[in-house]
C-alpha cells in the first residue's frame, strides 16, 4: 500500500526532484573542478620551482664549465668563481708521427688588492700525460717536482702557511687535474706553463688533434633585459651583480673582443711521417708553411680566435699513401719503448651484414635505485629492447635481494616478445637489497651456449651500490666466455669505479647516464657499439724480442674506423724480432707482422707507455688484494716518468728569484734572468695588436683595465685558504638529494578529498530527506 502511495507521491514531485538532481550534478561538477584546480595548482607549483632555475650570475664561472686554460679566484658567491684576466696565451704543439707534445704558456693577472690563492684549470684531452709545470708568480720562478701525492700536499700546505709562493698540481680524475697557486700578491702577474704528451687521434684514414680554446659561458646581461630575479618562494631577489654596469665593455664572448683582450698565439709543428695530402683547420684561419712533403708549420692568423670553438687540425696522406700501420720507438734508460698502430682492413667487416646478437639485459631494481634512478633505468632498458631486431635473441633479468629471469631461455626478439619484456620492465619498482652476484651468474652462465657467429652481449644497468666488488669481478673474468659485458651507470652518484672495471674485464664499454635527458643520446652511442663491432679477440705478441709489458692488456674490441694502438716496453737498447697482432673480423682471422728493428725514432713514447701502464695497473686493481702495493707500483712508474697520477702530484717549489731581494718589482717589467731552459718570452714581449691605431689601442687598453676592475670587484673580499681549496676540487661539488617527502601533501589532499566527500554526502542525504518529506506529505494527503 505504502509502496503505491509512494509511487504516486513521486509523480507530482518528479519535477522538483529533477531540478534537485540537476543542481546536485552541477554542484558535484563544480566541486570536482575546484578540486582539480587545487591539485593542478600544486603540480604547477612544483613544475615552476623545477624550471625556475636562477640564471647563472653574469661573469661568474664554475670550474666544470671551463673549456680552456684559466686561473680562477673564489668569488663573493659561494660555489662560483671569477676568471683572472688572461693577458696572453702561447701554445706550441709538436706533432711527430703519432705523438703530440703540447706546451701551453699563459699569463694572468691578480687584479685585486689582496693576497690570494687561485686555481688554474685546464681541460685535457683524453689520456694525456702531464709531466711539466713551470710558473712565475710576481718575481718568483717555481718549477713542479713530482712527488707522492700526500707528500706533495704536505709540502704545499707548509709552504703556503709560511707565505711562500707555491703551486700544487693534482690529478682529480684521469683527465681532470687542478693546479692550486698560493700567495699571489696584489696586482701580480702569474705565468703558468704546462706540458703534456698525447697521441694523434686516428679514424678512417684521417689524423687529427684538438686543443681546448672554448671560453667558458660568461657574459654580462644586457641592461635592457635585466630584471630583478625574485624567487617565488622566498621572496628573495638576487642583487644586480654588477653595480656599475654602464661602465662595462661589451660581452666578453664577442670573438673579436676576446682576441684583443686575450691574445692567443698558436703554432703547430706538424711532422706527419708520411707524405701529406690536405691539412685543414676547420674552425680557425691559419697561415701554413710547407717545410717538406711530410712536414708543415701552422700558425693562427692574427685575430682569428673564435672563442666558441676548440682549435682542431686534421690531416691525411696523399692518395694511396695512407699508412695502415706504423711502428715507432724510443730508447730510454737502457730500455726500448715501442708505439705501434694498425688500422684493420675496413672493407670486409663493414659491408657484411651485422652479426646476430644475443643480448641479456640485467636491471637493478634495489632500494638504492628508488626515485629518478629507476625511471632512467626503465627508460634506457625499454629503449634498448625496442631497438632489437627480429633476428636477435634476448632475455631480461631483474634483481634486488631476489632475482627474476623474465623468459626461461633466450627468446627471439619478435615484436610481441619485445612488448612483453617492455611491459615487464615498465612495471618494475625499486625496493629491497642489492644482491648482484646471482643475477650476474644467471646472465653469464645459464643462458645456454652462444650460437656460432652470434655476439653474446650482457648489458648491465645499475648504480653499482654494492660491497662485494672483488667477487663480482672474479665472476666476470671467470665466466664471461664469449660474452661482452657492457655496463650502464644510472643515477647521480653511481659507483663508476665498479662499472668501469666490470666493463673492462668484460671487454665491453661503460656508459654513464646522469640524468633523464641524457638517456636517448648516451644509449644511442651504446647501441652503435653494440650493433657494429668490427674486430674482436685482438692480441699482440713479440716474436724474438723480450717484451715485458704490452699495453693495453687485454686489448679492447675495435669499432668502425678505429685503429689498434699499443705501446710496449722491450729489454735492451737495440731489440730485434717481430711484432704480431692478431684478431678476428666476424669469423675471419686477421694477422699482421711488423719488424721491430725497422721502427722509426720517436720522442715521448716512454711517457705514453707509462701513462697507459698506470691505466692498466688501475684497471687490474680488483685482482690485487694489497691496495698499498698497487699504489706503490703506480707511484714507481709515475715517479720514474715524471707523471702526474692518482698517487703522484707535481708540487712547485721556488727555484730562483728573478731579482735580488730589495729591488722594487714593477709588474709590467719584463722578467730579467730567466732560469735556463725556461721560455716565457712569447707571453711577454710584443703584443700582436701593437700595430693598431693609437685610438683603438687606447680603447683596448681601457677595456682590459675595465675587465680587470670588474673581476676585482667580484672577487671574494679576503679569499681564504678554505675558499681557495673549494675551487681546487669544486668539480666534486656535492649535489644534495631531495629531502622533502610528499607525506604532508598526501595528507593535505587526502583531507580535502574527505571533506569534499563529507560535504557531498551531506547534500545527498539532505536531498533524500527532502524527498522522504515529500513522500510522507503525499501519503498524508492520501
Amino acid at each position, binding site marked *: 500500500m505504502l509502496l503505491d502511495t509512494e509511487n504516486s507521491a513521486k509523480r507530482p514531485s518528479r519535477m522538483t526532484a529533477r531540478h534537485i538532481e540537476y543542481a546536485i550534478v552541477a554542484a558535484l561538477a563544480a566541486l570536482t573542478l575546484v578540486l582539480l584546480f587545487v591539485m593542478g595548482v600544486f603540480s604547477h607549483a612544483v613544475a615552476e620551482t623545477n624550471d625556475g632555475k636562477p640564471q647563472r650570475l653574469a661573469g661568474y664561472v664554475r670550474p666544470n664549465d671551463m673549456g680552456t686554460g684559466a686561473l680562477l679566484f673564489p668569488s663573493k658567491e659561494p660555489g662560483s668563481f671569477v676568471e683572472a684576466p688572461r693577458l696572453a696565451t702561447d701554445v706550441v704543439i709538436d706533432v711527430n708521427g703519432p705523438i703530440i707534445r703540447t706546451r701551453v704558456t699563459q699569463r694572468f693577472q691578480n687584479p685585486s688588492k689582496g693576497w690570494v690563492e687561485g686555481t688554474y684549470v685546464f681541460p685535457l684531452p683524453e689520456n694525456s700525460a702531464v709531466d711539466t709545470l713551470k710558473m712565475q708568480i710576481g718575481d718568483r720562478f717555481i718549477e713542479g717536482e713530482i712527488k707522492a701525492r700526500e707528500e706533495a700536499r704536505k709540502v704545499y700546505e707548509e709552504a703556503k702557511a709560511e707565505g711562500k709562493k707555491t703551486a700544487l698540481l693534482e690529478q682529480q680524475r684521469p683527465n681532470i687535474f687542478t693546479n692550486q697557486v698560493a700567495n699571489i700578491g696584489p696586482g701580480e702577474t702569474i705565468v703558468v706553463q704546462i706540458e703534456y704528451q698525447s697521441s694523434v687521434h686516428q679514424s678512417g684514414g684521417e689524423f687529427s688533434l684538438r686543443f681546448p680554446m672554448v671560453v667558458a659561458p660568461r657574459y654580462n646581461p644586457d641592461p635592457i633585459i635585466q630584471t630583478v630575479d625574485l624567487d617565488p618562494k622566498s621572496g628573495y631577489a638576487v642583487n644586480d651583480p654588477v653595480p656599475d654596469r654602464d661602465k662595462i665593455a661589451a660581452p666578453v664572448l664577442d670573438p673579436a673582443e676576446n682576441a684583443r683582450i686575450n691574445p692567443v698565439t698558436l703554432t703547430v709543428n706538424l711532422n706527419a711521417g708520411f707524405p701529406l695530402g690536405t691539412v685543414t683547420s676547420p674552425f680557425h684561419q691559419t697561415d701554413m708553411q710547407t717545410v717538406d712533403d711530410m712536414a708543415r708549420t701552422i700558425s693562427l692568423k692574427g685575430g682569428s680566435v673564435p672563442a666558441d670553438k676548440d682549435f682542431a687540425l686534421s690531416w691525411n696522406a696523399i692518395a694511396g699513401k695512407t699508412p695502415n700501420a706504423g711502428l715507432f720507438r724510443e730508447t730510454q734508460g737502457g730500455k726500448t719503448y715501442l708505439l705501434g698502430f694498425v688500422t684493420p682492413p675496413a672493407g670486409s667487416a663493414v659491408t657484411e651484414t651485422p652479426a646476430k646478437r644475443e643480448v641479456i639485459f640485467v636491471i637493478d631494481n634495489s632500494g*638504492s635505485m628508488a626515485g629518478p634512478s629507476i625511471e632512467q633505468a626503465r627508460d634506457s632498458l625499454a629503449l634498448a629492447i625496442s631497438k632489437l631486431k627480429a633476428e636477435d635473441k634476448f632475455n631480461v633479468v631483474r634483481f634486488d635481494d631476489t632475482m627474476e629471469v623474465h623468459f626461461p631461455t633466450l627468446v627471439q626478439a619478435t615484436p610481441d616478445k619485445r612488448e612483453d619484456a617492455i611491459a615487464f620492465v615498465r612495471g618494475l619498482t625499486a625496493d629491497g637489497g642489492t644482491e648482484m652476484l646471482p643475477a650476474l651468474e644467471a646472465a653469464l652462465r645459464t643462458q645456454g651456449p652462444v650460437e656460432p657467429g652470434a655476439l653474446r652481449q650482457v648489458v648491465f644497468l645499475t648504480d653499482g651500490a654494492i660491497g662485494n666488488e672483488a667477487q663480482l669481478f672474479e665472476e666476470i673474468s671467470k665466466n664471461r666466455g664469449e660474452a661482452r659485458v657492457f655496463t650502464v651507470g644510472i643515477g647521480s652518484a653511481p659507483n663508476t669505479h665498479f662499472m668501469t672495471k666490470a666493463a673492462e674485464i668484460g671487454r665491453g664499454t661503460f656508459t654513464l647516464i646522469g640524468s633523464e635527458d641524457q638517456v636517448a643520446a648516451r644509449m644511442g652511442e651504446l647501441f652503435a657499439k653494440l650493433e657494429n663491432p668490427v674486430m674482436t679477440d685482438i692480441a699482440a705478441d713479440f716474436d724474438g724480442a723480450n717484451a715485458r709489458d704490452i699495453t693495453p692488456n687485454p686489448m679492447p674490441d675495435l669499432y668502425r674506423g678505429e685503429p689498434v694502438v699499443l705501446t710496449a716496453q722491450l729489454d735492451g737498447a737495440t731489440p730485434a724480432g717481430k711484432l704480431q697482432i692478431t684478431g678476428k673480423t666476424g669469423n675471419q682471422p686477421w694477422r699482421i707482422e711488423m719488424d721491430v728493428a725497422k721502427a722509426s725514432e720517436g720522442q715521448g713514447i716512454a711517457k705514453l707507455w707509462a701513462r697507459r701502464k698506470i691505466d692498466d695497473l688501475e684497471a687490474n686493481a680488483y685482482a690485487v688484494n694489497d691496495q698499498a702495493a698497487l699504489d706503490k707500483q703506480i707511484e714507481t712508474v709515475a715517479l720514474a716518468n715524471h707523471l702526474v697520477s692518482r698517487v703522484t702530484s707535481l708540487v712547485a717549489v721556488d727555484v730562483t728569484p728573478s731579482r735580488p731581494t730589495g729591488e722594487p718589482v714593477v709588474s709590467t717589467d719584463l722578467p730579467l734572468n730567466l732560469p735556463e731552459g725556461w721560455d716565457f718570452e712569447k707571453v711577454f714581449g710584443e703584443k700582436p695588436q701593437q700595430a693598431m691605431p693609437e685610438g683603438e689601442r687606447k680603447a683596448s687598453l681601457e677595456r682590459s683595465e675595465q675587465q680587470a676592475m670588474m673581476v676585482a670587484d667580484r672577487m671574494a673580499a679576503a679569499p681564504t685558504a678554505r675558499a681557495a681549496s673549494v675551487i681546487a676540487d669544486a668539480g666534486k661539488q656535492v649535489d644534495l*638529494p631531495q*629531502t622533502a617527502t610528499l607525506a604532508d601533501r598526501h595528507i593535505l589532499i587526502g583531507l580535502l578529498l574527505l571533506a569534499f566527500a563529507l560535504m557531498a554526502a551531506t547534500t545527498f542525504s539532505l536531498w533524500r530527506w527532502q524527498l522522504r518529506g515529500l513522500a510522507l506529505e503525499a501519503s498524508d494527503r492520501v
Partner: protein
Amino acid sequence: MSDKPGNQENQDKEGRAGFLARLTALETIVLAGILLIALAGLMLVGKGFYMKAKAEVSQVLLKRSFEAQLQGETNVKPWPWADFSTEAEITAPRIGKTAVVLSGASGEALAFGPARLANTPAPGEPGTSVIAAHRDTHFRWLKDVKPGDLLVVTRNDGTNLTFRAGSSRIARWDQSGINANAPGRNLVLATCWPFDAAEQGPLRYIMNAELVADADPSTLAAQGESGKLPVKSF
C-alpha cells in the same frame, strides 16, 4: 523508509542491496562517486601517515641495529632486505633530539633515516661530511639548531665526536657549494627548504658545523682515548 521492512519483501531478499535498489541510477552513481572520493581521500591520508610512521618506527629498528654495531657486531642490517646499514647517531643535546644515520643517501634510505651522502667522508674524517634528511620527519628539528649549538655524532666504531653548529644558508640542490674535500673536519646537515612547504622544491637548507677539537670532556670521557681524533694517514 527502511523502517518499514514489512512492505518490501522483494527488497528484503536482496538484503543490503535494498537501500541501493530504491535509488535511481543517477543517485547510485552520485553515491558511488562520493564513496570513491572518500576512499581516495582516506588512502592518501593513510599513505601520508604511513610515510611518517615508517620514518618513526624504522628508527627503533635502526637504533637496535646501531647498538648491535656498537657491541662490535659487523654486517648487521636493520632488516634482512634493507639496502643500507646504520653508520652513526646524531644528537642535538640542547633540543634533545636524536636520529640514527644511514649509509648512502640514495633511493629509499632517506625514507627511514638521515643518511650520509656516499661521496662525502665519514663525520670526523678530513673533509666535509654531508648528512641529509627529510625536513618533515627526521630533520624537522634542524630549524631549531642555532649557531653555537653542539651536535654529538657517535660513529658505529664507537667514536664520539662533537661538532659546533655554525652558519646556515640556503642554496639550490645543484649549487650547494659544498666541497667534500675542504680542509678541516666539517659536518654539513642538509634538508629541504622552506621548512613548512608541502611540495618538493629545488632549495636546500644547509647548516655548517665544525669539529670541536677540545670538546667538553664529559662528552668524550666515555672514550678510552678521549679527545683523540680519528686521524687517517694524512
